């Protein structure tokens, strides 16, 4: 990529864009995005080659989507499902992503089950857990923090995960 000079940062600011976008749709209150100064940090407790890795997505199975629901309306619940059952792809049409410029027909672009299984086969990780986990993209921080996150932690403990890869669409 050629060097360049720019008056604005290159990375898209979705916080800035969404403020203008929803403002133009007549929503006067800008969304309050989560901000934290302090960030928790946990280190791996064993070599990666011995770790069971879990995978978390914001995508859902089609049958679990309430067709009348607006994304973020709180009608989805966190879930755990077998990776094998997701190999045919998940339902993403109700999520917010750049549908004009790309597609989600390739599962491993947003839920890299096959790639992580390859790393397991090579011995880079111990294993990919049999189950993956889904979490709704919720408007409410409270629902995410108090309902969804503890449920995901419980799934992680049930499956004795050592580390987690989260891939928001």
């Amino acid at each position: 990529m050629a060097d360049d000079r720019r008056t604005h940062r290159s990375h898209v600011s979705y916080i800035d864009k969404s403020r203008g976008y929803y403002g133009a749709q007549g929503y006067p209150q800008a969304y309050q995005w989560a901000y934290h100064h302090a960030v928790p940090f946990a280190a791996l407790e064993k070599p990666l080659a011995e770790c069971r890795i879990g995978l978390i997505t914001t995508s859902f199975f089609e049958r679990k989507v309430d067709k009348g629901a607006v994304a973020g309306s709180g009608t989805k619940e966190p879930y755990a499902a077998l990776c094998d059952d997701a190999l045919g792809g998940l339902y993403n049409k109700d999520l917010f992503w750049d549908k004009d410029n790309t597609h989600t027909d390739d599962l491993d672009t947003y839920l890299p089950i096959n790639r992580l299984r390859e790393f397991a086969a090579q011995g880079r990780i111990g294993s990919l857990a049999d189950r993956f986990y889904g979490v709704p993209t919720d408007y409410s921080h409270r629902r995410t923090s108090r309902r969804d996150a503890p449920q995901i932690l419980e799934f992680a403990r049930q499956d004795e995960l050592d580390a987690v890869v989260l891939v928001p669409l």
Partner: protein
Amino acid sequence: MSLVARHLEEAGLPTVVVGSARDIVEECGVSRFVFTDFPLGNPAGKPGDVEMQTTIMGMALDLLERAWQPRTTTQTPFVWDAESNDDWRRHFMKVDDSNRTALAAAGDQRRAAQADAKADGAGRG
């Protein structure tokens, strides 16, 4: 999603977020973040590009192993368009004279649909 990562970290479980919305993830604040500067939809690599997907997941695993402090972000080397065409950045969620009226109408429509759903008892929260 970043709030979930924080919750897991607080409970002692190491995490890495693989994503394309850099500002949202970094404002929330996570321990480890692999950023790919792509349109939203393919944070783990381009469709059909197994080599790229493998590289991105490899970087996520590297970060799990090697990051020693929170807010460690690494950016993958990939660009969405080989010709450096950045139109996707401008196009996504754009607001200008070409769509201002349509956006206002879409907002009205959405609010009306939500009000109907609520009246029917289908809404929640």
